[in-house]
């Protein structure tokens, strides 16, 4: 079973995405802040990480940077899932190594799941 780590501080999103991906046959690990997210990524070595950018303790950019610096986690694809949509944010996330960048307000649940499937295959 493929494993997905979802780093997001909003419980409602954890629930909707987590349960939907669970139904699709993925094992979903949840982290509610950046620090926990990075630790879980190292411990669990998931097949994919969904990452919010505005997070308590350690923001998404920092997490992304650390993930890509660490040899244990640098190969895990990361989808950024956020509501920040300034060009500077998108560019920074892509430069840091994000595989895909989705703006929450513009995507339906179904489209997010499709994107996950595309990358994880």
């Amino acid at each position: 079973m493929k494993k997905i780590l979802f780093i997001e501080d909003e419980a409602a999103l954890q629930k909707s995405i987590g349960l939907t991906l669970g139904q699709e046959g993925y094992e979903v690990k949840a982290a509610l802040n950046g620090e926990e997210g990075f630790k879980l990524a190292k411990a669990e070595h998931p097949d994919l990480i969904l990452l919010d950018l505005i997070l308590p303790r350690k923001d998404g950019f920092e997490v992304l940077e650390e993930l890509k610096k660490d040899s244990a986690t640098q190969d895990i694809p990361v989808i950024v899932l956020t509501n920040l949509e300034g060009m500077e944010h998108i560019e920074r996330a892509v430069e840091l190594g994000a595989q895909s960048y989705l703006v929450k307000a513009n995507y339906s649940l179904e489209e997010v799941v499709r994107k996950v499937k595309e990358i994880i295959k």
Partner: protein
Amino acid sequence: MIIDKRYFSLNLFVLCKSYRVGLWQCPPFLFLIFGFLTVSAMVATYGIANRYFEDPRLVALLIIGVTTILLIIGFAIVSGFERLAEASRLKSEFVSIVSHQLRTPLSSMRWLIEFMSGSKSSALSSENRSNMEMLHEINIRMLRLVNLLLEVNQVEDSRIVLEKNSVDVKYLTEEIVRGFSVLARSRNVKINISAETDLPKISVDQRRLNMVIENLVDNAIQYSLGEGEISINIERQGNYLKWLIYDHGVGIPKMEQKKIFEKFFRARNAARFQTRGSGLGLFITRAFIEAMGGSMGFSSEEKKGSKFWFFLPIINEK
């Protein structure tokens, strides 16, 4: 570096742009003009007074008097404009903060609703399923409005950043019309799409074009007065793609036609038939089309219907 930044803030053009007003309404610029005016008035008063009065004390008094009056008037005008400019800046900042804060809970709601009405968790009664659909539609409407407000802010700051996607306009239009099928059915409105075969894909910002077409289709349905037919036609005209929508709705009164692209403007008859509407749709629609290198127009007759069209350049990007 710090000194550099200070000089930067002395640059009137940059400063005025941050207030989002023209040069002649920009407080720092007006201040400069008034300074110049005051100095010239002093010199002129000196010249005139010197010719007519012998007593230098009287001349000095006159100059002081004129200068004081000018300073007071100038101060009043400039500070008035400054308050206005500041209010407009605060307003746009306020809109931006509120909209961003609204987007997060709204998208959480959207996904939770989508999860609950998803096929694999279908413990819903058919009534609750349709309630869920309604909730979903309301939620999407709110998200759209919030997005629209953010886009308006960006347009006004002239910081639209366009993406480039290769778009099949016919397919996009069909998808959007499908999304409106529930609304159209509930209003007894039929939508026909006709398109030339072999239309080329065009290179535009797909999300923005999506908003444009959504707006025009939504308007056509809303103002169709409960029944009627809407036709959409897509064709190639030279190096442009022409997209046209035609409805048999309430139309736009002649008197108000030149105002319909203004921000927050709603035609009087439109507000009577359809209370829902922000008056932002057409403003943003035209701004997007123009930003993408196209143009748009319309013709309309009251009680007969409206025709809206836009042109987008066909750019072959290989």
